[in-house]
Structure formats: structure tokens, C-alpha cells
């Protein structure tokens, strides 16, 4: 209850049927500080932020703003009190201009109720300039890069005279240079005495920008610490409540012969200034090996995986050799039959059947093996047995194959999708950023899973947006930059600096 507390959260509890999302949380946010909130998925970070920003209005406990009790009736009320939130999923109207988005709902008007476009554009331009964002305010929001779109949201918040800005994992879709710009923007906001609440998974970011760090776990506040008085290891420990052993795979894996070779693969990019999404990519993958692909967003990692899996809309050039045979898949079904499996980047959009049960999700790719004659109807007993086998094999935490897949945590959903593809007995497993949105504990489990699959003779191609992850699990790492292969490192040679250098190697 220090005198400088801007917001005090007092005994705030939020219950959902069957779940306590927040349990008597007490927290003071000081004026002008940058305060990070960390915790595993489901720890209650988002719920707390939604209460602060007026998205959730129905909770127990009190909020005090400058010592006065307040209760927001909605996001408008919170904005009026100076609290804005930038959601992880940006809230822009893509068809409207940047300026129109900034002034959405508070449009400036001239006489007769006509819009005053000119003055809105001028004001928007000034705001964006102050944020190092040199986009034209008349540009359509949907045509902008994600980093610029985010700055539009920040500009919107500033135009509301925001005193407290909540950012929910703001860097998850940014390139390194955009992240650097965001840090500068945050620095500038702090000079203007804006208080920042920053939610993130990434330790380096948190330790770089925050003054204090609050750890939530299972809806309870574990501890609030000064940055100077702690280190990432301790924070990780507080988040999971246990020490994560730096997953060590000391015993070296033994790659046993080439399973996949890519020669001079190029993917054209029709109608784009750069012409090629991928250009002259050549590498080989051995069975029993994890090959990492590093690269910034847009480097072509996902596109490569789509080519290898027959999921690319545009045909590629070059040759792919799988297990000694030249292949060219036109549909994922062909890739599946040949022993290639892809676990996609965007789990929710491209992977999960969220209205189905865990069991149905697991067996989706291998139903043909689970039918009985004469109508080729699905044999429920075989299906349940297959699902249960996969659940125990991958240690998926669920009440059983009949549980709804959406009731699982992110890590277990990811395991469900991996289980689906393991049932196809693949030779090559393509994992596109498999640990995105997965909490720390589940990440370690996924690493162990990859290791054991690899030791069983599977060849794994892994992309990740986090370099330390690649350095931990991969035998070799290749680096992409703007569609070209710009570096190849063995596990011993690779360091974060070397990888980042190769990934930013522009001509």
C-alpha cells in the first residue's frame, strides 16, 4: 500500500463454473513502472488483465485507482479512466485506414456530422511519427505488417490519453527489428510516465524491460520481485513451482543414414516484388536426427514444410528425395502415405478439430486402419484402444479419449496432434514451431518426446521462433534468411549470436 500505488488490486477472485481462475489476488502497480506478469498458460494472467481493462466486469474483490475504489462497467469505462489493453490478437478493422482505426468510435466530425478526415489523418500521422512508425495514415490497416498494426493499436491507446497500457504478449508475431522498435517505444512511453503492464513468456524480454516481475500460478499470486533481485532461473522456478532441469541429451544420438534430401528447391512468389519465397534450398536429413531450421518471420520456414508435405498451393521447383526415391507430393494425402507428417504451426487454425474428442482427434489420420467390414464402418473398440495407446505413449494428460479436446492445455493439445501423426508411422516428422503458446513445463516434455522419437529412428525437421530451443534439442541447425539458406551449424558450433547473424544476413 505504498503511496505511489497507481492501481491496487484487492482480494480479486474470479470464478468460472468448476474453476477458480483467480484466487484472492493482491497486487499494487506503481505509477510509471513497467511491471511484467508471468505465469504458465492458465495461471490467470489474462483473466487479471481482462478485469483491469474492463473486459470482465463480474468478479469478487476491489480495484483501487489512486486510492479510489472503482468498478468498470466495460472497456469504455476503463479507457475513460486511462487503462487500455493491446490484445495478443490485434483488434483492427482491416478494411479501414490506419487513421480511421485509431479514431474508431471517437471519430472527429465537422458540421452536419460529416467526418473530418483531414484532421484525423493529421493527428494519426503525428502519433505514428512519435512511435517511429512511418506508415501513411491513409493506408488500409489490413495491408500493413503485424508490427505496424500493433503500433496503430498503441497509437490508439495514446490518443485516449492512456496512463496504464496493458500489453499481452506483444512480441509473439514481431520480427527482431520490430521487437527492437517496440522496446524503444516502450522506453518512450515510460518517459511520458505511462505505466506498463507487460505479459510475456519470454524471459529475455521480461528481464530487459521490466522494473518488477509478478509471478502467477494456478490463479494465485506467487511473488512480486524487483528485477535486480532475481534471475530468469528463479522466475522459471516460481512459475512452475519446480526446477526444470535443463533438458540434457548428453548421450549423443546416432543418425543412421539419409532419409530426406532436398536439392535446389525453389518456390516462386507470383506477383510479389521478391519473386521467390524459397530459393535454391539444399540440405539433407538423416533418420535419428533432429535438424533445426532457424529464421525470422517470413524467412520461409513454414513454406518449406508445406512444400515437403504437398500442402503448398504453388508448385515448387527442384527435387525432394525421400528414402532414396524422388517424390513430388500434390496433396497431403500422398505425403501421409509416403511417410511424411506435418504438425502445423497454428494449432488452433490448422491442426485441431476443436468440436471433437481427444480420441477422434488422435485417430483422424489413421481411420482407414480402424474399420471393419463390410461397410468399412469405424470399429469403436479399435478406435478407443488406439487412442488410449497413444494417450499413454505420449503421456497426454486427459480424463480419457472421450474428453473434449478443448478441455486440454496447450501442451497436451499439441501432443494430441503429434500423436495423430505418429499413428501414421512416419519416416520424417515436420514440426513447425511446436512449442508456440505452450507453457514451460510442457515444453520440456515435448523436448523429451522429440528426443525419444528420434532415438527410435525418426528424422525430425524442427522450426522454432526461439533460438535457445533449437540449441537445446537439435543435432544440426540450418538458417534461413528471406528464402535463402544462409548457414549450417552443428550443435557444437552453434551459438545464438551465430544463428542470429546468419538469419539477418541480407544482401
Amino acid at each position: 500500500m505504498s503511496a505511489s500505488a497507481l492501481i491496487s488490486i484487492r482480494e480479486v477472485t474470479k470464478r468460472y463454473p468448476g474453476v477458480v481462475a483467480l484466487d484472492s489476488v493482491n497486487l499494487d502497480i506503481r505509477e510509471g513502472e513497467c511491471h511484467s506478469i508471468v505465469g504458465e498458460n492458465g495461471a490467470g494472467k489474462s483473466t487479471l488483465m481482462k478485469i483491469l481493462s474492463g473486459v470482465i466486469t463480474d468478479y469478487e474483490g476491489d480495484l483501487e485507482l489512486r486510492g479510489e475504489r472503482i468498478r468498470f462497467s466495460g472497456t469504455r469505462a476503463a479507457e475513460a479512466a486511462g487503462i487500455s489493453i493491446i490484445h495478443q490478437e490485434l483488434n483492427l478493422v482491416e478494411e479501414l485506414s490506419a487513421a480511421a482505426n485509431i479514431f474508431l468510435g471517437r471519430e472527429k466530425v465537422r458540421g452536419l456530422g460529416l467526418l473530418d478526415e483531414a484532421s484525423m489523418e493529421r493527428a494519426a500521422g503525428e502519433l505514428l511519427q512519435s512511435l517511429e512508425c512511418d506508415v501513411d495514415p491513409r493506408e488500409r490497416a489490413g495491408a500493413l505488417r503485424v508490427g505496424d498494426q500493433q503500433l496503430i493499436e498503441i497509437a490508439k491507446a495514446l490518443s485516449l490519453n492512456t496512463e496504464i497500457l496493458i500489453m499481452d504478449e506483444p512480441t509473439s508475431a514481431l520480427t527482431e527489428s520490430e521487437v527492437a522498435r517496440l522496446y524503444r517505444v516502450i522506453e518512450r512511453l515510460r518517459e511520458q510516465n505511462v505505466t506498463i503492464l507487460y505479459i510475456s513468456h519470454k524471459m529475455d524480454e521480461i528481464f530487459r524491460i521490466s522494473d518488477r516481475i509478478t509471478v502467477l500460478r494456478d490463479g494465485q499470486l506467487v511473488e512480486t520481485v524487483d528485477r535486480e533481485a532475481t534471475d530468469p532461473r528463479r522466475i522459471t522456478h516460481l512459475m512452475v513451482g519446480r526446477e526444470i532441469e535443463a533438458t540434457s541429451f548428453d548421450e549423443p544420438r546416432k543418425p543412421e543414414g539419409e532419409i530426406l534430401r532436398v536439392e535446389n528447391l525453389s518456390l516462386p512468389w507470383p506477383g510479389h516484388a521478391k519473386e521467390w519465397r524459397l530459393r535454391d534450398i539444399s540440405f539433407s536429413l538423416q533418420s535419428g536426427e533432429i535438424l533445426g531450421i532457424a529464421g525470422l518471420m517470413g524467412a520461409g520456414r513454414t513454406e518449406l514444410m508445406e512444400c515437403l508435405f504437398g500442402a503448398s498451393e504453388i508448385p515448387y521447383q527442384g527435387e525432394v528425395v525421400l528414402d532414396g526415391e524422388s517424390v513430388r507430393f500434390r496433396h497431403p494425402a500422398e505425403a501421409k502415405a509416403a511417410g511424411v507428417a506435418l504438425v502445423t504451426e497454428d494449432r488452433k487454425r490448422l491442426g485441431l478439430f476443436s468440436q471433437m474428442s481427444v480420441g477422434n482427434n488422435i485417430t483422424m489420420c489413421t481411420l482407414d486402419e480402424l474399420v471393419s467390414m463390410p461397410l468399412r464402418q469405424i470399429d469403436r473398440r479399435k478406435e478407443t484402444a488406439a487412442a488410449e495407446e497413444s494417450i499413454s505413449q505420449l503421456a497426454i494428460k486427459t480424463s480419457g479419449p472421450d474428453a473434449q479436446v478443448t478441455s486440454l492445455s496447450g501442451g497436451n493439445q499439441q501432443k494430441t496432434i503429434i500423436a495423430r501423426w505418429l499413428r501414421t508411422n512416419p519416416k520424417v516428422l515436420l514440426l513447425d514451431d511446436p512449442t508456440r503458446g505452450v507453457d514451460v513445463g510442457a515444453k520440456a516434455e515435448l523436448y523429451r518426446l522429440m528426443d525419444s522419437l528420434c532415438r527410435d529412428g525418426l528424422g525430425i525437421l524442427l522450426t522454432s521462433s526461439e533460438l535457445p530451443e533449437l540449441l537445446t534439442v537439435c543435432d544440426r541447425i540450418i538458417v534461413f534468411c528471406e528464402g535463402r539458406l544462409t548457414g549450417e551449424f552443428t550443435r557444437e558450433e552453434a551459438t545464438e549470436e551465430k544463428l542470429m547473424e546468419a538469419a539477418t544476413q541480407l544482401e
Partner: protein
Amino acid sequence: MASNPGEGIQGSHSSSSLSRLYSRYATECGLLIAIFAVVVIAILIDPTNAYLEKPWYNATEILRHASILGIFAMGAGIVIISGGIDLSSGSVIAFSGVICCSIILGLCQYAGLVDDTGNPVTANLPVWILVAAISGTLGVAFIVGSFHAWLITVIRLPPFIATLASLVGLRSLGRVLIQDVNRVFTSNANTQIYIRDATYKSLGNEWYIPVIICAVVALALFTLMRSTVTGRHLYAIGGNEDAARLSGISIEKKKWLAYCIGTMTAALAGILYSSYVGGAMPDRDGLGYELNAIAAAVVGGCSLAGGLGTISGIVLGAIFLRVVIDAVAKTVKDNPDEFQGMIVGLLVVLAVTFNELRSQKGDRKKFFPGALGIVNIISLTVLMGIVAVLVTSDGDSSTDDSRDKLFAGCIVAGVTFAVLVARKMFESRPAVGQGPVPVPIPITVNVRDVSSTEDPSTEIGKQEIEGREPGGEDDEGRDS
């Protein structure tokens, strides 16, 4: 649930197989109870005792109509489950009537079944003509369905547009075609064809034939959707098309199948309907039926977003719609057909509202916020009053009649107004801690009538939800 996985596991173990069965078939159970309730209520308030006096006749009539609706509702429902929409069924019904009757006329000419003036005689048709006509009609429906699938998967039109074109185009084509057919095969250019053959007419007029056909189609489609790989893939495509493609499912073939099932079930219903009315009248046959089919599917638990719904639900949805329409027809004497649209509209809104409420458990729902709420309280009041005036049975003495009606209208309107205003006052109370407050909510009385389950914001509803497996709700299992 994430914070306490142990509880979920225990819960699922302790739940008996009966409650498991219930949670799997919640929509079906609700509809069965609702159908029963509507029948009981109709028997109780029916002034002429029509149900009790002629129970057999009424039951068979309801079954006949529900079966014909059920056949093409299943087709529309499968398209909806696969993530699309088929607006063409009403027009396909009319068009297939034309095709079926045209084939019969043509084959009569071919077989020499003509009278002295050269007009075909359709009184005693050989069986092969009927078989050929029915197969030909189903074949045409297959072509129409394939055309839809081509427009949607190859040309990449939105399903709404592709089938909307058929909705408008096919009926018109049928009307043009029937005149030319008459000109070629008969001596006139009528806009109708009448078929006099007794066997043909019996198809739709013997009540058990549509019922048996519906049952056979239902069994086949139930097996397809519930137990085959193809069915599972259709649910997958409806639930997440991108994920389905990336799982190696051939989207195009599965959609082709779905749209063909859509048009071929409509054609089957069209043949039965044409047999029931004894010919083809493309300007009137099946007018607006596509919406009845979609309504039956939605009431039966299909989500227009795709991926959810069961064949059993759709069939019960069709029966429920028909039972309500028939019940209103029995209690309101004058021209029940005119009430049909109102009933279908009301039931669809209530069913979807109810599903929404079920998925929004825990949050206090405001029904009448602000000015929009006030306007709708007034409009609902007026609507209820008018409905009361319309349905008040017209007594024998015409002098008191209008006064009675007005009186009833005012009473119903007044009660509605009082209830809705009370609800609004309750909503506008400032929120007080402790989550959802258990208070019976007037408007949900209607909702309960439809699906006979409690509103989630009441205490009973809440316990029920908590008792279930976390996250599972009763949607679980509908996908299988």
C-alpha cells in the same frame, strides 16, 4: 479445469452410463420430451378433441408430412454439418417433380400408351416406367448436386451463392421445361402435369410409404455419418476445413458427396410430394421448403458453423416442427397454413437462442439492454397481443366475438409487458459479487418449452453444467 485436472477425471468415472448417454444425446432427449409435451398440451387445449377422436388418422398424417420433410432435412443437415449450406432443396423438389412427370409422359409416348388424340394415358403405368422415372429423377438430382460441388470446390463460389443460384434458377427452369414437355408430348402447353396412375399416387398417399422411405434413408445416413470414415471426415471438414486438408482428407470428394446427398434427398422428397399431389406444379411445389429443412436441421442440433449435428437430431427436429405446426392447426381453426411460417420462424429463433445460452453459461445474460431492449419489449408485447387476438377461438355468437378477442389480446399483452419489464428491471440492478444470481427468468419459460432443459443461469442449470465433464458439455459425442 486446467487447474484441477483430478476433479475432471473423477467426475467422468463416477458419472453413470445413463447420464453419459444423456449428455451424448442431450438434443435428442430434449426434442423427444418437447414433442411429447406439445402433443399433450395440444390434446388438453384442443376445443374439438380432434386428436382423441381420430388418433390414428392424425398420427399418420403427422408422420407422413414429417417423413417427407425429414428426408430432405437430412440432406440439408449433412451439407450443414460439412460446413456448407444448401438453399436449393425447395426448388429441387419442384424441379424433380417436373423431371419425374416428364419422364413418365415421354415413356408413355414411347410405349404407345396414348389415347385417340395422341395424348399420353397415365392411368395404368407399367412398373418399368415408374422405376425409370424415379431413377432418372435421382440421376438429374445427382447432376445438380455435382454442379453445386463443382461451383463450390473448383470455381470456389461460396456455398450460399452457388445454391442460391439453383434456388432461383431451377424452379424457373422447371416452369419453362414443363410447358415444352407438354407441347411435345401432349396437345396443349399446360403449366402442370397430372399423373393418374394409382401406384404412382400411392407412393405419397399411403402414409407408410414415406415413413418407410424416410426410415431407410435415415438408417443409411445415420450409419454413414456416425460409423464410417467418410462421415467422420465430413464432420472434420465442417469443423476445421484447413486442418482436414492438412490431415490428408480429400475435401473435394467429400463435399461432392455431401451436396449430392443434399439434392438427391430433396429429389426423393420431390417424387413423394409430386405423388401426393398427383402431378407436377413447379410454380407452387415445395415453395420455401429449403428454409423448413434448414430449420429442422438447426432445431435438431446442427450448428450453421458446421461440424455439429446428428441424423437422429435432424429427424426429431423435423418431427417436432411438424407436430407443432399440426398442433397449432388443430387449436386454431381458420387456415392453419398461414401460421406455419410464424411457427417455423419462432422455433428457429428459440432453438438457436437456447443453444447460445447454453454455451454462454456463467455469464449473466442481458436480454433487454438500453433502447434496443425497450423497443423490443414493446414490439414483443404488441406481437403477443396480436397473436392472442388471432388465436382466440372464434365463438358462435359473432357479436361478443370481437370483444372477447380484444379482451384476450389486452390481457396477454399486459402480462407479457409486465413480465418483460420486470426482467429488464432485474437486469438493470447493479451487479453484486458472487457470480450468477439464481433467479427464474421469465423469457426462458418459452425457451424451456422448446428444449425442456433449464436456462444455464438458473441454479439447476448451473449444477447440471458443473456435474458434467469439464469442457465437454453435451456437445461431446455429437461429432462421432
